[in-house]
């Protein structure tokens, strides 16, 4: 596996970018859910 990554360095970049992207998405999803929760609370109260 290591040699694959040494030969095709571009895929290393891909993994890195995908990880960053996954992180951003996870964060975005989390705050989206949080806000939804508060909004529902406010509607009830």
């Amino acid at each position: 596996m290591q040699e694959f990554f040494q030969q095709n360095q571009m895929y290393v970049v891909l993994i890195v970018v995908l990880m960053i992207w996954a992180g951003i998405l996870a964060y975005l999803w989390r705050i989206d859910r949080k806000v939804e929760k508060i909004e529902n609370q406010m509607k009830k109260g």
Partner: protein
Amino acid sequence: MKFVKFGAVTLVTLVIVAGIAIPTSLQPTSLFQFPVIPGLEEKARNIFFHVPTAWTTVVAFLVSMYYGIQYLRKRDIEYDIRSVSSASLGFLFCFLATVTGSVWAKFNWGSFWNWDPRETSIFVLLLIYGAYFALRSSLEVEETRAKLSAVYSIIAGLTVPFFIFVLPRMMGGLHPGSKGDPQGSGPVVSFTMSGNMLFIFFMSLLGFNLLYVWMLNVRVRLAKIEYQQSSEQA
């Protein structure tokens, strides 16, 4: 809204994978090969990420200006909330665009900054955002703050066309490397891209815009909640 979120996630993921994984070759034969662009080679892939970021910051600015104008006309604080939210996102994207552009410049043209017209315009946009927030933080009265920041964003917005149409003519000779000539709108570079590259590029533009819409939506909802809570406490 669901469409926006779904669209943003799939498109950007697609672009990331395609932008990075599709190999370049001197004689591209299939849909899954990019041509080698002399002077750029692999670095051309940056175009899928850097340009849409710059594009998005301009969109965010225009949206912020639009909501500012709406506030001036209707005096509903909700417009101001939307205006600031878009501005903060725009600032984020502008910062990212400047930094990614600078990094790309370093590896392509040799130095991090050159005062090339495009570089200068994105930097000025950064200054405009900075000034906008500086102005807002110095005003405490809500209506005055909303009013004056709307006016400022319009005044600053008036100078943006100068950067798009004027600078290229003034400093036309300065374009280093193969960034192509700046016909058409500012942030969109138009050098020769093959069909499949153009496709990925436009997918990226769309994806980033959708991402921006989603982020704006969340940001505005959060700001409105904060606003309601602070006015309940007051």
